[in-house]
């Protein structure tokens, strides 16, 4: 189809072979320029296809979970507008949810076990290593995330129940508050739509995510007051 005449001068000058790069010399010897060129382009397409395939695998094999959210509305110049979603399972506190392997550090991988409540799924445990199948109750889902930040807080004092004077209570031990990201925090919307949703602060957003067997989650649908957000 094409003449193999367009090889760049630098590449054709045989410097690769002369500079002691046997692999490069071998590739040049066995693959003409036209094939090398289109293989490099195909590699790029394959990488993008792999990105899509991983997403498709999770959607096809994962289990759906419903999560409660609270949106804010930033703008990402790379990708237009999106709703930035934080979930109830994003901000967790030691004591309310059992946490193994504390304290956590920024960027650390953690595994959160989710259990279905009446409607939404809630976090029931956090661990630094992925729980095995035997450690997870039937029906539970394990979701992978990364610690965004973690810091100790002092719990609010309990209100006094009796009117009689009480001896001074010892200071309560600090507990860890952890914010975790799961990779499902952005939902892309047409320009301007995000601001409309953000202006209506009464709206209750619910996300349907899908979690695969490796703990990877993808966003499937977002509902605003029970109605799916769609623009087509």
């Amino acid at each position, binding site marked *: 189809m*094409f*003449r193999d*005449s*367009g*090889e*760049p001068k*630098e*590449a054709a000058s045989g*410097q*690769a072979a002369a*500079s002691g790069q046997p692999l490069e010399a071998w590739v040049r010897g066995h693959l003409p*320029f*036209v094939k*090398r*060129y289109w*293989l*490099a*382009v195909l*590699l*790029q*397409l394959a*990488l*993008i296809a792999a*990105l*899509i395939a991983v*997403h498709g695998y999770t959607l096809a094999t994962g289990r759906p979970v419903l999560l409660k959210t609270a949106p804010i509305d930033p703008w*990402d110049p*790379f*990708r*237009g*507008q*999106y709703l930035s979603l934080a979930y109830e399972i994003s901000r967790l506190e030691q004591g309310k949810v059992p946490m193994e*392997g*504390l*304290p*956590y*550090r*920024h*960027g*650390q991988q953690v595994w959160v076990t989710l259990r279905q409540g009446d409607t939404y799924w809630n976090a029931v445990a956090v661990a*630094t290593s992925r729980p095995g199948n035997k450690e997870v109750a039937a029906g539970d889902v394990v979701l992978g995330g*990364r*610690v*965004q*930040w*973690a*810091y100790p807080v002092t719990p609010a004092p309990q209100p006094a129940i009796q009117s009689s004077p009480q001896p001074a209570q010892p200071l309560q031990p600090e507990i860890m508050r952890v914010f975790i*990201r799961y*990779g*499902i*925090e*952005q*939902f*892309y919307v*047409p*320009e301007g739509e995000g601001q409309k949703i953000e202006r209506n602060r009464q709206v209750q957003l619910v996300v349907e995510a899908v979690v695969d067997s490796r703990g990877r989650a*993808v*966003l499937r649908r977002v509902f605003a007051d029970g109605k799916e957000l769609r*623009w*087509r």
Partner: protein
Amino acid sequence: MANGTAGGTVGGKPPSIRNRFRRGAGPPREEAEDWVALGLITPAQRDAILALYPTAAEGRRDRAVLIFSILGSILVAAGVILYFAANWPLLPAWAKVTAIFSAILLTYWGGFRLGYSPGAYPVLGKSLVFLGALFYGAGIWLVAQIFHLQSNFPSGFLLWGLGILPVAWVVSSAPILYAATVCLTIWMFSELPAVSLLNYLYPVLLLGVVMPLARRLRAALAEVLVVVGFFLWFAASAGRLLEIGGPREMATGGLVVFAPLAMLYGVLLWAGGAAEWGPQRVYLGVGAAFTLVGCYALSFNYPAPVSQLLGGGAGAAGGAATSSSSLSALPPLLRGTPFLTAGVILILAGTAAATRLAWKRGRWGRGAGGWSVMAVSVLVPVVAALTAHLWGTIPRAVVFNLLLFAGTVGLITVGVQRRAEAILNLGLLSFAIHAITRYTDLFFRAIDRALFFILGGLLLLGGGWLIERSRRRLTKEWEEGGESSYVP
């Protein structure tokens, strides 16, 4: 006779001269006439030599077309990214993915036809290939948008860099190599807090893939990016292990770790330049810059209580405490010290090896002079790092201000003596930054704010005029007298 002499002369030219000819910056037309007059080559040989190189006008025109085409490609890519990002939610996902793949394929096809086969418009073709590399990167982010992948998407930069490296290799494109190196460096910084151990893939890619390609393409800027990127990776990794995160830890870490490390690395690069590890202008220039930046960081009079580093833990990135793994449970200094020590030993060993090689090749001055300069240059940052907590802030600031001044004067002197414009410019830049910083330090609080700015502005204008006048005079003299390349 003429043949043999000419062949020997050309073979013995230093690399910088060969590079200048290759870039079309100065084809040896006049020199070739002299060579004919001297009987070194025949008129036919002169014509054959000149036919190898573009004329200066051709070289300038080609570069201008390439630069404008690449700028045009960047604008087109930015426009396409923004247009699709803002307007395409109404399309179904399969149509979007088809559009992305089609755009990439069509752009590369156009680049191939115009640039290589049949190649009627090579400069435009190269620009289209560059545009294809940009479209590929845009495609990654658009796919992330279609499927609502997270915006904090460091793997996107890794995929972008890895995907365009083979194209840079196949079409020998320096701009695509620069783009790949920048993508990989952004990925390294983005992934820094997320990887469980240190990111060892980045230095492997830099030294194993980018560096050889930069050498083959003679892409000096890519080599600069590699040596700078490698240091950034090393310093960032050490900083992460030592948990140098908060402002106090950064200030202390700057004095105890980063500034001495930058100076040592700079000395390694000088020695590498003298030993001809690569393009001398890259290694000597970047090495001098690293050394001066290290001196500059130590020239401020802020205190350095090392206990802030020894205490560790509280300054972890993002306010997080240490993790519970056995490695992370160690105090930060214990975790970071082996890595740091190994790095410093490697830097010192590399410096010694390069110095020895340079000395053997007669590039470092045979005798005690070169060795003394090298020994002092190595000792200064080591002593600074080891004794940072003992020095008073004022003595340390005074000593490193003097060293910074001496280094700047030394660079300017070397630049003038060797007629090396890049070294001279670096020295003048260092002088200007040093002067502005100290002016700000000394007078910002001492005099009225309005007077401070007026005086500062006048000093800048006057100093800039003086520096530019001197620089122009020198470079004009060199052009009239014939520029020589910088060889230490």
